[in-house]
């Protein structure tokens, strides 16, 4: 479980996120809803101690520095070493958790071996996204944060990914952000929304409700 106590974020005197108290359940897929610029990516940066913030963020009773090794973020721009091949990137960023052969086996569901041997500067945006998803399979983190993950993915990959994310959630605590609600409707367990710059839990059992993310977004009238 990730607990936020009196969490807030300001840039100089400008408030980005007002004082908020909420929890992200373990082995759960939490979705953070908000318009562009509302502070979704900023929240992820704060969680990982990459930005200063007020309040407390606790990961299963631990400070971020104790669990950092078990965290992974898939950023929207999917940074990789573009001068190296996909496989070499996974060997480096995979921290030796899987061998070259194991990576090739896992990769079958995402990218074919020929592409994996090519330099990342030849990859499309969607292929880079797939490479990032492959990194999740290699590192198998306890805490996974995905920023705009569905952007750039083809329909087939999105269908595969919904199943994958559900499977990952059996072992991982996952926080996702994005705007393609139709993709997230199927996978979200609990829903967090920005309300007057505050983050609140809108629906703890979203998967059991009959509402769609589109409806809730309309209700929020951002």
């Amino acid at each position, binding site marked *: 479980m990730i607990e936020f106590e009196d969490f807030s974020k300001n840039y100089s005197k400008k408030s980005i996120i007002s004082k908020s108290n909420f929890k992200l359940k373990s082995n759960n897929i939490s979705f953070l809803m908000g318009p562009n610029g509302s502070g979704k990516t900023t929240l992820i940066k704060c969680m*990982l101690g990459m930005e200063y913030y007020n309040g407390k963020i606790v990961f299963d009773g631990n400070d971020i520095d104790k669990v*950092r090794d078990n965290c992974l*973020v898939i*950023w929207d721009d999917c940074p990789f*070493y573009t001068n*190296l091949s996909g496989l070499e990137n996974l*060997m*480096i960023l995979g*921290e030796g958790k899987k061998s070259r052969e194991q990576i090739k086996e896992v990769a079958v569901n995402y990218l074919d071996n020929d592409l994996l041997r090519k330099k990342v500067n030849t990859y499309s945006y969607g292929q880079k996204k797939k490479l990032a998803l492959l990194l999740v399979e290699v590192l198998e983190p306890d805490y996974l944060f995905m920023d705009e993950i569905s952007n750039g993915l083809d329909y087939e990959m999105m269908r595969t990914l919904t199943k994958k994310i559900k499977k990952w959630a059996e072992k991982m605590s996952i926080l996702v952000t994005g705007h393609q609600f139709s993709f997230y409707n199927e996978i979200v367990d609990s829903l967090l929304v920005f309300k007057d710059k505050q983050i609140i839990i809108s629906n703890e059992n979203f998967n059991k409700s009959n509402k769609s993310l589109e409806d809730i977004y309309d209700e929020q009238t951002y």
Partner: protein
Amino acid sequence: MMNKHINQELLYGVYSKSFLIITIILITLFSVIIFMNYNAVIDKYHDYTWTLMSFEGNETAIEKALAGEFHVEKQGNITHVKNPLLYHKVMTERYMYTASPEYMHLQLLESSIVFNPIVFGLLGLIFATYDKKFKTIKIKTVRISKKNFSIIKQISLAISSLLIFISALAISYIIAVGVYYRLLNIVPLSNFVTDVSLVNISSIFTKLIFAYIIALLFVQIGYILGVIFKNRIVGIMALMLYVYILPAFGKYDLYNSIKLVSLRVFDFYGVVRISQITETTLFNAIIIIMTVFLITIITSTIITSKRSSFNP
């Protein structure tokens, strides 16, 4: 835990061929020294044979000249040599000795004072900038703190510098041995054997350690320049300007201090020479080197820790 992240850095160096390129550059530069020494032997040997021809086979005169002494006098730009036959023979012997496997490895270590600043400075610059350039710092600093990120980079640089330096040295030594055997086909060694008693008695180990310290120091300087400027070109220009172009900034100058210590460690008997230095004490020089080394480690770690991973 740190091991796997050090491995990450080393793997990048291997996959990106950065290590290979740096090693090749260093071998190329070492080869320049080997061929400068080769040319020195050939030039001096030719001077000797030409002078010998002027004696027109007068054995008595030749023996008398070789048994005597020579004097070198400089008048402005003109150098006068008394007894040039002996002078050219001694010089040929000297450069044959420095080209030999007995001395060449020491000469390569001596040349590290000239080449290590730029070569290892470049390595430091590459390591300081590549994660920023590809924005992969955003992935890495999720899984390690920024402070550890910087420390890991610096440890990896120390390890890779040692491996690169030793590899380049070993390969260059093999090249030097090959060149020496080629020289033996041109110059009859039996005529040019000399007993050399060198001034510095520091062991090969001390020489090797000092050459590695120069590499380590400049890899750190390259690293901090990369951290500050976030740009390899600006960093390498600054390094070249400091090492090769600007005059020494007096007795507290770092490069001047390195030169002073190197005079105590190396013999500079071959083609590598040091330009004039500003006199200072050995103690001062060592303190300056150590201070700069510590400052670069601490400052680069502080800057990396404070700086956002998201700034371009």
